[in-house]
């Protein structure tokens, strides 16, 4: 079945949302509705939606002037997060009614601490923000702690909009995000055979900046006709998360095709549905099912590498680490051992870029390590 105009339009809409991450936020705000930015792969977006706001995951912009932000976020902090702070500090930054941050990785925590201190010493103008400290060890203590944190965030969102969140609003929000999850599951299942890696990432990313129901409909429409992926040697990508397709575009222009990825913005966005539309249900979901890369063990990531290679028929495995987002390097030996294909580790990579010289090693040799 050939793609219809509707399918093309849906794909274009997803691409537009990726290319202009505030597109839908502006539209939402123009209709007088609040926009809540968020930082963190494990943000409980259902609560934001239930509060009547549009949850928009903040994205960086390669090339942005980050000098002022880097001064505050000193030390070994992921340049992606520094870029986010630079966006928040810029006069032309996103017009947010509220910002929510989570503990998905250390850089997000550092960003929160930096914003909190900048606010305390009154060094910068900032939007109001809340921190949701969702944690991910498997114990019951963690689930209880997360439930408490979700209750607190729900109360904060209720106070912010002037009315408590109702069970009906939460149920409706959970249903909307579950439709988005179902569409993403379909995307995950078909990406390797039907899409370039860059388009798959764009389509995932669109889901973090569009209203969930609209995203589900658009993605479903875009997937309604089988696609034909561009040629390229299949590659499984791990390591740092990507909020733009820049690195994917470079890889694929160089003869690769990213058939799968285990970072927090890629295939990990494929989550099971929230089964109980309550705070207890969200606590269970965000403790056990939404686990950022930092919360997964080396063994789990090695297992994912082996499965990803098999599912995507990948011929090579790449662990890409941005400078200061290098904790993934602890997992690489286990991933390398588990993935039955040539493997490479690139670390110290700049945000939004990749030094592809190290990829030559993926031709035959089993593994290598390259730092720019």
């Amino acid at each position, binding site marked *: 079945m050939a793609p219809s105009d509707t399918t093309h339009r849906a794909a274009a809409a997803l691409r537009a949302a990726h290319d202009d991450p505030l597109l839908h936020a502006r539209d939402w705000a123009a209709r007088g509705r609040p926009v809540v930015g968020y930082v963190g792969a494990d943000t409980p977006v259902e609560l934001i939606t239930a509060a009547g706001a549009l949850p928009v995951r903040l994205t960086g912009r390669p090339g942005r002037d980050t000098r002022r932000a880097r*001064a*505050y*976020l*000193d*030390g*070994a902090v992921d340049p992606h997060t520094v870029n986010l702070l630079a966006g928040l500090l810029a006069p032309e930054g996103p017009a947010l009614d509220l910002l929510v941050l989570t*503990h998905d*990785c*250390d850089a997000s*925590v*550092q960003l*929160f*601490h*930096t914003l*909190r*201190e900048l606010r*305390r*010493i009154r060094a910068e103008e900032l939007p109001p923000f*809340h*921190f949701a*400290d969702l*944690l991910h*060890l498997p*114990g*019951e*203590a*963690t689930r*209880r*702690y997360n439930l*408490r*944190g979700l209750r*607190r965030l729900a109360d904060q969102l209720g106070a912010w909009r002037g009315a408590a969140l109702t069970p009906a609003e939460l149920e409706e929000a959970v249903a909307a995000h579950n439709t988005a999850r179902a569409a993403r599951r379909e995307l995950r299942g078909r990406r390797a055979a039907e899409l370039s890696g860059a388009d798959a990432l764009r389509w995932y990313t669109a889901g973090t900046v569009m209203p969930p129901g609209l995203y589900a409909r658009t993605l479903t429409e875009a997937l309604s006709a089988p696609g034909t992926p561009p040629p390229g040697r299949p590659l499984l990508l791990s390591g740092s998360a990507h909020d733009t397709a820049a690195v994917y575009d470079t890889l694929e222009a160089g003869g690769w095709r990213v058939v799968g990825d285990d970072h927090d913005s890629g295939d990990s966005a494929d989550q099971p549905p929230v089964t109980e539309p309550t705070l207890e249900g969200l606590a269970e979901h965000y403790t056990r099912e939404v686990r950022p890369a*930092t*919360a997964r*063990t*080396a*063994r789990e990531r090695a297992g994912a590498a082996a499965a990803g290679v098999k599912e995507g028929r990948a011929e090579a495995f790449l662990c890409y680490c941005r400078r200061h*987002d*290098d*904790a993934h*390097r*602890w*997992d*690489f*030996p*286990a991933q*390398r051992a588990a993935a039955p294909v040539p493997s490479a*580790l690139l*670390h110290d990579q700049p945000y939004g870029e990749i030094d592809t010289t190290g990829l030559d090693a993926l031709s035959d040799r089993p*593994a290598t*390590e390259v730092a720019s």
Partner: protein
Amino acid sequence: MTGRQRLAAAGAALSHQREWFAGTRAEAERGRPLALVNADAPQEIFRAMDVPYVVNQWWASIISAKRMSGRYLEALRGRGLPDDIEQYSALPLAEALAPRADDAPWGGLPRPSLVLAECTGDSMRRMFGLWESELGVPFLPLESAVAENVPTEWWTLMRHDWESAVGPARIDLLEQELRALVPRLEELTGAAYDPDRLAEVMALSNEQAEWNRRTRDLLARAPRCPVPVNDVIPAVMIPQWHRGTRWATSAAENLYREVSALVEKDHAVVEDERRRLMWIGRGLWFDMNFYRSFEESHGAVFVWSMYLALAADAYARYGEDPLRALAARFCAFRDQMYTPPWSVEWYVKEAKEHRVDGVVHLISPDSRSSWFTTHALEAAGVPVLEIRADNADGRSLDPSALHRQVADWIRALP
């Protein structure tokens, strides 16, 4: 009077530590369970179970002081693991993964029966997980939680009103984790947990903290600095790792009495004390003599390191329930030294109370919020020299260049 003789408390602590480690090592080799525990994790639980433990960062400091860090870190690299991330915490793992050799520090760390660490940052859980996956040593992780809001002057609240300083959510979390941890520890070690024993351990450790507070206050008030910081560090930190024992409490008391006597006698590290300096950051383990190398040439003495100050302010927790008090001791421990506003306001308070002329601020690659620390000190009128290096990895800086840099900065102080 001035002099370079070592503090008796430092010498006694160092002797005790060697003796203790030799005994612990021998017992471990005979099969007694041994735990390796991160510095910011609740070691008292092991004390209450009579399970010996080695503190990960203390052992890293020994490796570094013996200048073995480079060799061990190469062993990590040889396995494809990073040798340039969190080296301080990674050194004991690196040693365990390196080929055994006769020149291991103090005979080498015996293979622990378990490792315990809080999941701080992105690396800690992965790094400690390698003990389990590579060496078969069970890893028991604890969460590292973050509070949204905290009162600023934690040091006025922590001893008695820690519930409001830390907040109940984080305390509940760690308390529940500890309750779940105890049966697992009992299973792994064969030892029994005794809540009454924990109460004794907490009482002793609180007493130790009080002696440390007296010593810190004494040093802050002394007209001239009576003791070198590189003596104070071992005199405080070695007993710190034995927290909850009568020996450690006595050692803290002995340090206080010795310092007190020196102040009485108007003893000074530098007769003509012209500059009082503060060292913010971890100890420069591979060159502890650095701290004394500006005394004769510049009349400059380091009067402060975080080790005594933390021992004075950061550990004491009084309360009816010892397990909850223990949770309160550790669930926000790192925030006290690394997270603003707690860290920065505390450093400013300490700088003022110690009347320092300048701060040397060591910024390790994993340091947190260092801009705010420097900014707050400078806003308070305290000059700051920032140094970027890893404290445990001697490869990361040139000692002579560092010395020149600090010497030039001291000369330029107003």
